[in-house]
């Protein structure tokens, strides 16, 4: 039944696209609604960014099509793949492997030290620092790193914060000291830490099964934010707290926490929570691998069913049709009106794992390639 409904919706959407394709006037989506949920027959479609996607695969020199993470450093693009760390520079790909000192072939996370230009790569076998072409790797055997499976990394000043499969840790680059954070010294109930976002004031950890962990750098106090509904996957009290305890990613920007879980996403301003589910937002899926906030009101969500952008009121989704694989972009306004916008390109795959920004452009890590979204003006 649900399948049928989706097809019907899709057919209507395509029809609407055919009628109104010519109405698109700029890089920001501007089309008439294809499926006005609110019953209105004429609404203004929000202007949300429209991209022309160029996709990179192994055929172009990408080390592997499975891209876990992407990082932009000016004109240089770093891709953490399942088979090495790729660097795209000057139109060419260069691959760093374990032969170069990379801790493991599978690179799960990336962070840039903006002051030095060093890139930190979290891998399945440790943490690697790429500096001027030289790689120094830290593992649980040769250093104080808590565990070799490094899901997340974030650089703040002289500290490198690391999310691992056995707790979180911090490396002080000036003293060389490792500090470990786990169930013994924090409110962490589970130690499977999936993501970290560090600033000079606060550090947030996305903990799989243990919610969101906050470390106040000034007071050195820990706070745990978890789902008020407990382990129940039903949302009994919306916006009363974190949407779910299985947190996969966190992004702290402009004093706002954006948290991604496998059962919806959350925004927290220090006082109020706002949660996002497919049923009441533009999210294409509640299963979110990664979130990156642009600022307090804008964020990107990387889900298993496409890439979503939220501008504080409206949503844009960049995906591909499951049946035809043709690219699809939809826009959902604040009232819930959904409009399909004609596009000729889309991300390489619907399973989105990461994103970073290059000016107005985006770079997207997917399960089947790396995508460069070039803003259309």
């Amino acid at each position: 039944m649900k399948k049928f409904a989706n097809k019907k919706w899709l057919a209507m959407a395509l029809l609407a696209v055919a009628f109104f394709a010519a109405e698109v006037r700029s890089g920001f989506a501007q089309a008439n609604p294809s499926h006005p949920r609110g019953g209105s027959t004429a609404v203004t479609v929000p202007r949300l960014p429209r991209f022309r996607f160029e996709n990179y695969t192994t055929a172009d020199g990408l080390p592997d099509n499975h891209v876990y993470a992407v990082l932009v450093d000016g004109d240089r693009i770093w891709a953490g793949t399942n088979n090495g760390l790729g660097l795209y520079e000057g139109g060419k790909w260069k691959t760093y492997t374990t032969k170069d000192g990379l801790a493991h072939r599978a690179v799960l996370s990336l962070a840039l030290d903006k002051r030095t230009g060093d890139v930190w790569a979290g891998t399945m076998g440790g943490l690697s620092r790429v500096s001027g072409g030289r790689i120094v790797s830290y593992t649980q055997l040769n250093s104080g790193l808590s565990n070799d499976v490094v899901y997340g990394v974030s650089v703040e000043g002289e500290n490198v914060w690391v999310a691992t499969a056995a707790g979180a840790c911090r490396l002080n680059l000036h003293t060389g000291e490792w500090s470990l954070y786990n169930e013994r010294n924090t409110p962490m109930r589970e130690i499977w830490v999936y993501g970290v976002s560090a600033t000079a004031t606060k550090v947030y950890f996305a903990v799989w099964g243990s919610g969101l962990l906050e470390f106040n750098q000034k007071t050195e106090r820990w706070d745990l934010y978890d789902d008020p509904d407990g382990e129940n996957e039903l949302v009994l009290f919306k916006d009363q707290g974190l949407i779910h305890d299985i947190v996969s990613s966190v992004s702290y920007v402009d004093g706002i926490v954006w948290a991604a879980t496998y059962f919806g996403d959350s925004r927290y301003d220090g006082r109020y929570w706002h949660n996002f589910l497919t049923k009441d937002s533009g999210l294409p899926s509640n299963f979110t691998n990664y979130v990156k906030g642009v600022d307090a009101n804008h964020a990107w969500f990387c889900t298993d069913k496409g890439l979503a952008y939220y501008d504080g009121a409206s949503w844009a989704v960049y995906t591909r049709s499951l049946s035809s694989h043709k690219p699809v972009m939809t826009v959902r306004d604040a009232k819930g009106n959904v409009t399909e916008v004609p596009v000729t390109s889309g991300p390489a795959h619907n399973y989105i794992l990461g994103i970073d920004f290059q000016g107005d452009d985006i770079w997207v890590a997917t399960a089947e390639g790396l995508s460069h979204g070039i803003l259309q003006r």
Partner: protein
Amino acid sequence: MSRAPQSSRTKAGLAMFFCALAGALFCGVPWTGGKVRAAASDRTGEHLDYASPLEVLLSPDDARLYVLCQQSEDVRVLDANSYEVMGRVAVGRVPRGMALSRAGDRLFVTNSWDDTVSVIDTRTLTVAATWSVGLEPSGVVEDAAGRYVFVANRISSDIAVLDAQTGAEEKRLLAGRGASYLALSPDGKRIYATHIYPNLPPLRTGLENRTPPESEITVIDARSAEVVDRIPLHSIAGVFHLAISADGRLGAVAEFHPKNLVPLAHLEHGGAFAYTLTLFGADVGQPVEIPLDELDRYASQPFGVAIAPDSSRLYVTLGGSESVLAIDVPHLLHFIHTRPRPESGSFAQDLSASGNYVAARIPVGHNPRGLALSGDARKLFVANRLDDTISVIDTSTLRVATTIALAGPKTVSALRRGEQTFYSAHYSFQAQISCSSCHIDSTFDGLQWDLEPDGFGIDIVDNKMLEDIKDIAPYKWNGGNPNLPTECGPRTEKYFWRSENYDDLTLTDLVTYIRSLAPRPNRWRLPGHELSPAQERGNALFERDVDKFGKPIPLTNRCSYCHSGPKGTNQKLFDVGTRKPTDSSGLLKTPQLTNIALTGPYLHDGSARTLEEIWTIYNPEDKHGRTNDLTKDELNDLIEYLRTR
């Protein structure tokens, strides 16, 4: 853990026995029944306030000569023509590096034991500011725009980027291990950094201690203050000063090329070191390594490099050979471009090569280090560190025209004679090596050596640091030497020098010097010597006598038993389970813990790259202390404590 039988005597020990006996019979060393005693070996030596000039600099107008004096801890300012003293500015402890601002109005001096930079106003000759930097600052340079001051930190192996006006640290860049010397390219675009210890191997292969060392020249973009390149230096360990020609087309760096993978006993076969330059830049294309050694005499321990403004000559100080090499650059380039270049890019093994480009070897004083060439290239100033003199070389005759004596004690103490011996390659076959070839700046070299003439790859040992080693006999990893006179005398003479023995007074002076080597300040101890919470927890683990399951830990399996006392050694031999098939014995003398954080790699053969690996990899049976009950947090705490020792 098993204690060494008191009566056991290793093969090496027997060798030492006969060696010592032979020394007593033929070399005049007093024989005392198993131990060699140098004359009055327990005397401490007289500490005199020598200047020990390490670096020299000329002002942009060539009017002044700045002399950095490491032991008297000051900068002497001399008239560069009359050599009259114009002033003297006290700086911090153990200064090591010096650089002028582009305008010449400020002189930056790094104080390696204080972790600071003294900023000297060259008009008033006073210290205008003192800036905090990283651990053990060494080289320093200001960029051409006067925006940043770069400081190479030897212990933290990084380069601090400071605001050139306020001294505020903006960031630190990853450099090679033991970052030490910096040079600014003439066009001001690049800063080049070198380092004195080889980088740790990036991958764990189990053969880290049997692979050639790797070093680098770190290339920094002066504008963005980011590392933009790293020029690899294969088989190099110990990289010192670097110079760039005025036209920017030729770079040269002084370096050691150790041959630590073959037995050191092969010294007479050229088996210990090649002393080389690596050249880079447009004049040479791909970087190329060229030897400085000659067929029958080595160019031991190159340190300072200067290139004449017209690129006609290149000068290198040889710290161990007590001389300066003058190299004809056109001949050098001709050699490089006409000889088939080895695939490795290195001519280091060709002892006939230097005959093509070495123009002269100019004898100077003891342990020549820094050098400065006048703007007209007619005078070359050389700091003779262990003579308290400056040699002024007339570059037209390639002879010392004048020797400037710096103010200070005129007598040469036993301590100073010992230090001169330590740094002089005079005693070894073809003057190849001295103690300081491996104990760089009286420390260590981060290498593992095949010392004994017992076959290739047998009994590999890690080089230890010398600081604070008095009164911890026996010596050697296998405890085979009962005292320092034995260690430094017959053992060194027989196995290392292969040429000339010390007389007993020389040996006494040498031992006196080595015994005087104090530990540098420990950087991980908090002010007041209290411990941080992590160090406190680690200390408790170090001292514990019961494991986490409540089971008593046998005495010989406690950290605090073997590593007891102020230096962290009970001076006894134990088997900690690290014996390799290529080791003659598993019994090893407990090493001291003084500044243990600096001295990696670890274990007797350097197989553990880090302190962590001692226990995460090389202690599977808890023979090296009871540690396998510890969590990762606790092991980290233990290491934090060890770093305070």
